[in-house]
C-alpha cells in the first residue's frame, strides 16, 4: 500500500468523519471580542482614540474594551513609530500578551518606518514586523479611523474566513 500524507487521509475520510465546530465557534468568539491594548505611540494613537470615540465607535464590533494590561488584551494596535529605545518594550508587551494574540500595524511608521526612514537614520525600527508577526497592515499617515475599522474587519475576516460587510468600492 502506498504511503499517504495526512491531508490525503483527511480528504478520504471527510464524507464519513465530521469534525466538531468548536474551532469555528472559538474563532467567532475571538473575532467578535478583540480587546485592544491601551497602547498609543504617536500621531496614530490619536486616530485610534478617535476610532473609539462617538462618531466611529469601535464598540459596535465589541472592540472598545481597551485593556491597559497586556495580559488581558487580545490585540495590539501598534499606532506610531517604534524606535530602537522603545523596541525592547514593545517586544516585551507582545510577549506578555496571552495567546491567542494579534497585531495590527497602524500607520506607515509601524509598517515600514514611514516618513522617518532616510539613508543614515539612526533611531527608528523600519517596520514592527521586524520584531514580531503582524496580521493586518493599515497604511496612512495617520490612517483615518475608518481605515482602522476596516483593518479590524480584515482581522475578523482572517479569523473567521467570512467578511462582515461587503467591500464598498469608491464610485
Amino acid at each position, binding site marked *: 500500500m502506498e504511503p499517504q500524507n495526512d491531508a490525503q487521509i483527511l480528504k478520504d475520510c471527510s464524507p464519513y468523519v465530521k469534525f466538531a465546530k468548536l474551532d469555528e465557534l472559538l474563532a467567532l468568539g475571538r473575532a467578535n471580542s478583540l480587546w485592544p491594548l491601551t497602547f498609543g505611540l504617536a500621531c496614530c494613537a490619536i486616530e485610534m482614540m478617535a476610532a473609539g470615540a462617538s462618531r466611529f465607535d469601535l464598540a459596535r464590533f465589541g472592540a472598545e474594551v481597551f485593556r491597559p494590561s497586556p495580559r488581558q488584551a487580545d490585540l495590539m494596535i501598534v499606532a506610531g513609530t517604534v524606535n530602537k*529605545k522603545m523596541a525592547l518594550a514593545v517586544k516585551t508587551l507582545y510577549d506578555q500578551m496571552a495567546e491567542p494574540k494579534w497585531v495590527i500595524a497602524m500607520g506607515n511608521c509601524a509598517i515600514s518606518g514611514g516618513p522617518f526612514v532616510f539613508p*543614515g537614520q*539612526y*533611531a527608528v525600527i523600519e517596520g514592527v514586523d521586524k520584531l514580531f508577526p503582524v496580521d493586518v497592515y493599515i497604511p496612512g499617515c495617520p490612517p483615518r479611523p475608518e481605515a482602522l475599522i476596516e483593518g479590524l474587519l480584515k482581522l475578523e475576516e482572517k479569523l473567521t474566513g467570512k467578511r462582515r460587510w461587503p467591500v464598498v468600492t469608491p464610485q
Partner: protein
Amino acid sequence: MAGGDPAMNAKLPPSIPFQPVDYAAKGCHFEAVIAPDKVVEAAALLDGAGFVLDTITGVDWMAEGQMEVIYDFFRLEEALRVAVRARIPRDNPEIATISGVYPGANWHERETHDFFGIRFAGHPDLTPFLLPEDATYHPLRKDFVA
C-alpha cells in the same frame, strides 16, 4: 553694547557684550559671543535680570573645527530675546554647565550632549536623554554615519 532700543538696553546686564540684531530679519533682539569660561557667569547675570532660559543647542562647524553652543533667553514681560554664543574646539568639546543656575538647563544640556557629544563639565547626569541608554554615538555631528 551699542545701538538698539535704550529701553531694552536697560534690561540687559551691562557686563555681557550684547550686540543688537535686526529682529524683523532674524527673530532675535540681541546676541553676544562670549568666551566659553564666561558662560556660567553670563547665565547667572541673565537669571538675576529675570530672563527665562529658552533652550540650549549646539551647532557643529566642522569646517572650522569648532562647536558652537547657543543659549537662548527671553523675558516674560516684553518682547526681548537674546542669544548667547560660545565656541569651543571640536576635538575637545567641553563647556561648564549652567544647570546650577537654571535647573531647566539640565535636560537641554543632556540633549545637546546626546546630539553633539559636547560635555558639560559639572553636569549632574550626562547619561543619554533621547538616545538609548547605551548609545555612544552623537548623531548631529556632521561626520556622523549610522
